[in-house]
């Protein structure tokens, strides 16, 4: 039974300003750090495509099932995000180790022959993200202390 209430002058002004603001809404990426390598570029996909990520897509288990190349792609191109963090965790589950001094990922290729106090003998492969492939690191002494 209250019926409409005519807007007072102040509210009319507020509505006018709201209408104007409606023309340039904030975008969710305005609240995120700049993504130099993979900025958001939403492209409309057919409605029969999945519009939402699969459930638990933000869990380590989900990431563990991704291929190694995918994990490295996420790690290097989505830096500073939760995706990078999950990719790092998944890579560790795939027995990769991140060498903080050389900023590279290593995976023991074969069990090291001897392990001494500060380095491990053995051959190692690493992921060369420049060439985007795994390569063997010849004659490399593994500085254990930098292992992350």
């Amino acid at each position: 039974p209250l019926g409409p209430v005519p807007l007072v002058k102040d509210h009319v002004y507020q509505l006018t300003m709201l209408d104007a603001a409606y023309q340039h809404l904030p975008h969710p990426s305005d609240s995120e750090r700049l993504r130099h390598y993979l900025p958001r570029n939403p492209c409309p996909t057919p409605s029969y495509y999945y519009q939402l990520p699969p459930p638990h897509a933000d869990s380590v288990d989900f990431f563990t099932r991704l291929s190694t190349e995918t994990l490295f792609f996420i790690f290097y191109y989505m830096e500073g995000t939760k995706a990078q963090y999950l990719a790092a965790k998944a890579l560790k589950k795939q027995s990769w180790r991140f060498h903080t001094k050389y900023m590279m990922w290593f995976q023991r290729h074969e069990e090291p022959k001897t392990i001494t106090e500060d380095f491990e003998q053995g051959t190692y492969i690493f992921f060369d993200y420049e060439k985007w492939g795994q390569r063997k690191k010849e004659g490399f002494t593994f500085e254990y202390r930098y292992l992350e």
Partner: protein
Amino acid sequence: PGIDLTTLGLNLNSPEILYSTFQSPWAEAPCRPQDIDFHVPSEYITN
């Protein structure tokens, strides 16, 4: 009659909390992992 609130893009039956992936009041979907800034070890910032 209001709005069917299950169509606003929020998983209201989720056992997990919603706010940590809340993208925006105008977004039809939660954040994806690559949308969320995260305090990763600084060594990960390799670029």
